[in-house]
């Protein structure tokens, strides 16, 4: 499964936000120091994520291209739904729960 922004790209966005928009507003020395420590910790995560192998999205690309060509394989909807659910469990688990609750009512 491919997913953009990647975890590393998200980490990078947060680092930019903290460094560019929050840090300059911090006047309390202790808070400023702790923010720098937190950003350093996040940079460790960022570099660790960099070392991970890139996920192979060949299967998703092939399926997407096949559907685009009008050749929808049997069971495609079920398979795609399961993929989207797996992504939602990471990106927005409460949305998935809420959706199922609303559907059950």
């Amino acid at each position, binding site marked *: 499964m*491919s997913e953009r922004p990647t975890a590393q790209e*998200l980490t990078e*966005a947060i680092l930019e*936000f903290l460094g560019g928009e929050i840090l300059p507003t911090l006047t309390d020395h202790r808070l400023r120091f702790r923010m720098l420590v937190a950003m350093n910790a996040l940079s460790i995560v960022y570099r660790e994520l960099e070392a991970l192998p890139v996920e192979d*999205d060949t299967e*998703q690309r092939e399926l*997407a291209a096949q559907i685009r060509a009008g050749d*929808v394989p049997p069971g495609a909807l079920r398979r795609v739904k399961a993929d989207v659910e797996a992504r939602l469990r990471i990106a927005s688990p409460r949305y998935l729960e*809420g*959706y199922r609750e609303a559907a059950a009512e």
Partner: protein
Amino acid sequence: MIAEMREALQNRLPEVLGREVEVSEPVLLAGGASKEAWSVDAGGERLLVRRAAGSTIHRHTLSLADEFATIEAAFEAGVKVPRPYGYLPDLEGREAFVMERLDGDTIGRRIVRKDELAAARAVLPVQMADELAKIHAIPPARVPFLAEAQLERMIDELDEVGEPHPAIELGLWWLRENRPPARTPVVTHGDYRIGNLVVREDGLGGVLDWEFAHLDDPVRDMAFALVRAWRFGVPEKRLGGVGPVEPYLERYNELTGFDVQPFELDYWELAGNVGWAIGCLTQMQRHLTGQDRSVELATLGRLGAEVEYEIVNLLERFAA
């Protein structure tokens, strides 16, 4: 920046309002990457000044001049819109327009929940149909700069992102296979939903955000308010989290005679979801390409999965 803006407004507002006025200190309500909104009072008038900012949010949006002309056309047609006062090609170095500042709520999550707005929610479905019918009756010749939208444009936008999204492809495939008979294109608002409407305790106060106006199938415009993301956490109320769709459809048909069928609403509701799923990705691209770095835009790339989930669920329902 505020002092310069005040001086610029003091110089320009008399010609816009047609009389000498004293201008209050302007307040920047929203920065935004594409457009600023300034609140200012002048000679007893409550004004909102929209001014160009750096980049545009979307390639297919109207210029400020055309957006202003569209609001003027809507105002003439009796649509509830802020009174348009004037277009300024150069306000402190950028183009801008001046319109009335309306009172009321525009925040979706508040509109669908706030107790004080319960009475408004009860009348909104019919009122939303009233305004939409008036918009769709604006003569296209009055707004000759509006382009006709093509459903196919969504595919180009998805291809520009270049990431595989089989759920979106399934949605696009279904839309190709099940297209309802074409309707004569009308003037559409293009983003007609809760969040772009001013809501007061007595109901709909005004229609805002005309930058996506174009010529299109009227039902596409009508169904956009049904998209789940624009129900703001109250999914059981299919019309924007405020009410049922039936009175909206019935009133619209009564006023237009278009005889819109429920299956057309289903079709365009799916199209609205597909469009917004792609929209999430193009917003994400603005961050990834460096055009507009923002955690919010980056996160939208992931939250697109919510919209894709709605697409596959709608497809399941249509197949049943």
